């Protein structure tokens, strides 16, 4: 396993290097100019030129790229153009909160996904299975912003059970923090949980028809344990693949959900960054995302090999 990891490290670094280039180019392909957005609605050309000079945007692109990359290697992400402050600080501030939201959502994805999948495949009675199916499908068909707003209307405005938005760290005050976390995490988690549930149901149905399940039954293993211990591991590989991708979905979905719930994470920073063409912020965020993806994929592969010992890597 360690050797596997070591083998993957160079390719991961290569990806990051490549990603940095792609990110740099792509951002500059998008029309709009950080200087004009900074200059305000009524700035003249002189002001814009001055700003361009100050930001170093008047230098040739290759030199800008090299500078950025050089600073990056030294851990310096530079100052943000428009949002204000050092990029590393901005990201540092939001990162923990987005991670909190994403992890919260991830837990819900796993819990709800398992519940939906298990109920859908093994629920007692047609009614239970059909209900699980209905929830799954609805979660897929209704976009998160609608779910989000409805959740807020029901639980915050209507029942006054939970706050409609905002943030309090779970680490500082777990009880309060969790109340803030619940709705956004749920909203973020539902579509992913549905996807997960669907694959799990599919896989479970298949695994439960396998002969080895019959073996377990013949050994007198209880139904519950058959499902969890015997059928589930066999059903998991595609689910793990999907879960790996859902981690990414959660991160990008966070942008939307953070806006609905005024959750002060990276989502808002990213949106602001894109709108204002704050290159340093967006570049750093994108690179971070790529890194997370590479890491998650690596993890997925490891889990995959661990789950199914028959697999050999090409």
């Amino acid at each position, binding site marked *: 396993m360690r050797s596997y990891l070591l083998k993957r490290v160079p390719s991961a670094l290569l990806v990051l290097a490549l990603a940095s280039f792609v990110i740099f180019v792509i951002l500059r392909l998008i029309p709009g100019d950080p200087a004009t957005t*900074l200059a305000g609605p009524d700035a003249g050309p002189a002001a814009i030129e001055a700003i361009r000079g100050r930001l170093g945007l008047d230098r040739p692109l290759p030199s800008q790229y090299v500078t950025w990359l050089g600073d990056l290697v030294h851990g310096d992400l530079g100052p943000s*153009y428009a949002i*204000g402050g050092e990029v590393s600080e901005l990201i540092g501030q939001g990162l923990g909160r987005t991670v909190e939201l994403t992890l919260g959502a991830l837990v819900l994805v796993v819990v709800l996904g398992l519940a939906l999948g298990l109920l859908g495949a093994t629920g007692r009675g047609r009614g239970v299975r059909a209900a699980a199916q209905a929830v799954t499908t609805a979660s897929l068909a209704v976009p998160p912003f609608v779910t989000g707003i409805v959740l807020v209307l029901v639980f915050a405005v209507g029942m006054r059970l939970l706050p409609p938005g905002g943030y309090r760290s779970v680490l500082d005050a777990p009880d309060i923090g969790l109340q803030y976390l619940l709705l956004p995490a749920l909203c973020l988690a539902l579509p992913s949980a549905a996807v997960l549930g669907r694959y799990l149901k599919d896989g479970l149905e298949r695994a439960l028809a396998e002969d080895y399940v019959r073996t377990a039954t013949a050994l007198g293993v209880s139904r519950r344990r058959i499902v969890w211990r015997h059928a589930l591991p066999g059903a998991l590989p595609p689910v793990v693949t999907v879960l790996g991708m859902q981690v990414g979905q959660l991160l990008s979905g966070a942008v939307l959900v953070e806006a609905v719930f005024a959750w002060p994470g990276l989502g808002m*920073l990213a*949106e602001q960054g894109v709108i204002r063409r704050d290159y340093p912020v967006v570049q750093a965020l994108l690179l971070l995302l790529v890194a997370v993806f590479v890491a998650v994929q690596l993890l997925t592969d490891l889990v995959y090999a661990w789950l199914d010992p028959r697999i050999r890597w090409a």
Partner: protein
Amino acid sequence: RSAVDDSAPAASASPRRGGTLTVAHGVDFTPALLFAVSAMTLVPRLVFNTLTRYDDKLRPQPELAKSWQVAPDGKSITFVLRDDVTFHNGRKFTADDVIFAVQNLQNPVRAAQLRSTAAAVTSFEKRGDHEITLGLAHPVSNLFDLFEFMFIADKDSVEDAVAGKQLIGTGPYTFTGRSPGSSLSFARNERYWQPGRPYLDKVEIRIIPQPDSLLSSLRTAQSQLSFDVRGQDVAQLKDDKQFRIRGYDTGAGALYLGVNVTEQYTSDKRVRQALAWAVDRERIVKQVLGGYGQASAAPWPKSSPAYSDANATHYTHDPVKARALLKEAGHDTLSLPLAHAAVPRVTAIAQIIQYDLKQIGITTELQPYDSATMQKKLIAQQMPALWTMGHGFAQVHPSTLAVSAYPFNEAKNTSRFSSPAYTEAVREAWVRSDAESPEALAAYQRVSDQLLDEAFIIDLAVEASVEVATAKVHGADLNKFGYLILDDAYLV
């Protein structure tokens, strides 16, 4: 514990000092645009003060300036400043800070809208620490707009301010922190020069970009005050006893249809006028502004000296007339591009315009751009034949609009419009010291006439500026540039 109770302010019966006021707003504060008026104007007057402050009739009242004297020729103004004012960092406020403030606005990098007015200040003459004379190149009718607009910032930390690191002023609240995209927090300035003020211990501005979420936060008392509730949503709260709703005459800017006069068809004034007759302004007010605004063919809100009902209703929804004008110009049908920012509200306006123009035979192709690109095109004069956007700066002295707002600038504007008559009218309205005299008003009307007749900027509606507050909040106010004033605000 419940996070719901936690966020509700402690209820107390008597008006008093203390408490935290949470203000909800949809747009984040951009430090780099601190000195330019942006979509977020809540911050300046919390942390800073201005020299003077307009009352409801646009008469300047003392703030950091105790008194002032404009020279009879209108070419200079002398301020006597308060001597009991200190910055949050303990430094004394002096005449040098006024000099710096003016020079700061003259700096093109600050991109301040009133730069042309600031640039008219050509000399500074200090008499002691608390008296100063500003010399002007020529009389300026919107001089006090500048002093309403220009806040006094600590000159040593101004670079930190535009980088968002610290904001140091003389205002009622000190800036205590910021979480980009999420919140800004302020604490009571214990050494504020106005005795006993402010009342509030803390002010928190929460950024809630989603209109629905903003509404929910008000409804659940997570926040208590907002100036950023959409018209449609205000209508929802109107009958709710829990809320107080207050409108401001200054409005929140105006919506317009811009026309590029160098394009083939739109170079014809009759075509432009046809456009002005074709649009249904009332419907825009109703459907886009939720009824909170005024249909107006002219840019002026009610607070402006140039406002008149006649101007506002110069063009109304009259497709027949529009078609006649179009015919007169030799067209039965036309096809024009219409650029707009791809934000829901503007897209809706663009679609209304598109539909209305279709009724008179003009088909339009919508060209959505993101805000950043729109901005760039606006400044670079790269707009297609038609575009739609919003503008501000009509709420104070009319000349401020004509010299400071880019679409109306007589020298260089996005419509590429210029005419000696317009230039003349603008200069006449600006270069004068008698802002309120009948002659001045006549000069303003000449500007209006030019705008309405040439129709290179076709105003559609003036947005209402609406304050939504829970019943507990009292005494919040806005200055004429939309700066939030909480000197006298308190929670009951």
